[in-house]
């Protein structure tokens, strides 16, 4: 295999897979976000700490996300709409997957771009029609990939990245959600 440099340390991931096979408790992570209401439908959410490999950990830097609604919703548009963050999560997760799988399969990537579109009937959230759901009707992801690979190999990269994607799974399968007030 020629040396492929997609910048993913696949060996570390494969090593972790072997170690965690026999240490399921160390594989338990908790991701965390903390949110504060600003005004109107504007909120600020920060992400820094998480739990994993048996202890509390932190990202190198805290990240801050502003969420609001656009002006057509009669809001201030201080940030993107919450549901758009799901698109951010899906696009970045699938892209990371494409890079990792490509590295593992010895495929050199030159460029990976994607567009994620979520179709949304807002009559659901407005309560205008009880038959319309609140969430996306459907989501479409379109990748444009330039790589040293056949079209079939590129299709397989994208398929495998979906198969191993946390966000793809979280969006396509139900998740038990508990919301409490303290």
């Amino acid at each position, binding site marked *: 295999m020629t040396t492929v440099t997609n910048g993913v340390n696949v060996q570390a991931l494969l090593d972790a897979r072997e170690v965690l096979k026999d240490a399921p408790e160390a594989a338990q992570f908790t991701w965390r976000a903390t949110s504060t209401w600003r005004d109107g439908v504007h909120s600020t959410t920060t992400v820094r700490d998480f739990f994993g490999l048996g202890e509390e950990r932190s990202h190198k830097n805290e990240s801050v996300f502003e969420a609001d609604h656009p002006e057509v919703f009669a809001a201030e548009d201080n940030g993107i709409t919450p549901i758009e963050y799901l698109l951010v999560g899906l696009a970045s997760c699938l892209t990371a997957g494409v890079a990792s799988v490509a590295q593992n399969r010895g495929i050199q990537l030159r460029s990976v771009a994607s567009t994620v579109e979520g179709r949304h009937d807002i009559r659901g959230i407005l309560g205008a029609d009880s038959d319309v759901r609140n969430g996306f009707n459907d989501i479409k992801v379109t990748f444009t990939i330039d790589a040293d690979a056949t079209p079939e190999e590129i299709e397989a990269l994208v*398929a495998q990245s*979906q*198969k191993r994607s946390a966000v*793809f799974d979280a969006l396509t399968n*139900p998740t038990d959600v508990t919301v409490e007030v303290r």
Partner: protein
Amino acid sequence: MVVGAGHAGLAASHFLSARGIDHLVLERGEVANSWRRERWDSLRLLTPNWLTRLPGGHRYQGPDPDGYLTAGEVADFIDGFAKASQAPVRTGVEVLAVRPAGAGTGAGTETGTGTGTGTGSGARTGTGSGTRIGYRVQTDQGEIHTRTVVIASGACNLPSVPGFASAVPESISQLTPFDYAGPDALPDGGVLVVGASATGVQLAAEIARSGRPVTLSVGEHVRLPRTYRGRDVLWWMHAAGVWDQRHDQLDDLERARGLPSPQLAGTPGRSAVDLNALMASGVEPVGRWAAIRDGRALFSGGLRNVCSLADLKMARLLSGFDEWATAGLPGLDQPAEALEPTRVPASPRLQLDLRGGEIRTVLWATGFRPDYRWLDVPVVDAKGRLRHVGGVVDSPGLYALGLPVLRRRKSTFIHGAEDDAREVVDHLADYLAGRH
């Protein structure tokens, strides 16, 4: 001591006899019991008759080498093998427990069973490592002491059903392939078949033919055409050497052992049972059944991707056959084929109201698992799988046969028993002789 008189246990018996090793084959029911009692009426073998063979040259001799045996014919074929090889089978003997002979206080009846008359003589004083205490086999007809045990009780003793099955409303009948005989015994109305491997697609096809609306929940699956370039796809697997790939040569053995059975049926018309064929006969595919919430079945939105994965894998396998055949094969005059991708519906349903009356029956075709509740030796992992390397179980003198990719990809097929049984018995004989 061999546990189970199916094709795998009888193949072991054949090679034990050939080496002059005294043994017994214990069978809880009759020879080929699962084929006779635990499968649905229309079941046929996936492999064509010319490939239906067992050790000692025992093979299909009928008029239709390209056909597929019915379950009853398979049972008769295996029974014929047992008789031809004069296997020392004790039918109607249920093994209740197997434990190391050193364990517990039970005083076993020492029999000649398992005492090697050939190469095994003197094994107890051999130079091999480990303890050679043997095993106590407790049956419903007494206890037997043996130095070695070959577990050939099968890989499909119990149906695997997800935990949320208990949340299915009582108004719906739930069946597994062990309870299902044929579509006529089902209630009228819709049937939700869960699982799209060989069992699920075969049952979905025949239930749809009975006129009942069928919804098929589809997770990861293996798509294969019944024929490719005019030949049975299993001919290609056989001829191109895919089936002979060994357990110690595969990149990801765990994955290979977990592969679901392919979407194939051994129907006389060699008809396809892939999702395109099923949809053409009215079956509605939905994603993997993930949960039940408020009486509604929730299906994964990932149907498109599991179909893409299956299409891509099938295309890779078939193009591998094409490459292998580029040198030219006598009689192969049909060109390479490109199969139509799976026509995934534009908007597969994501949920279904189980209380609405649309579904009257849920048929769990969600796989099978072996039953080792009788095995009182610490060799079963947390997921219920036997710890073994190529059939040599992680306890001296204990062996296994007939499990997925035990030693080769063909291990669970009828014709896969011969090579595995020969090698496992070689190891067993060496063990008795103190060479392990």
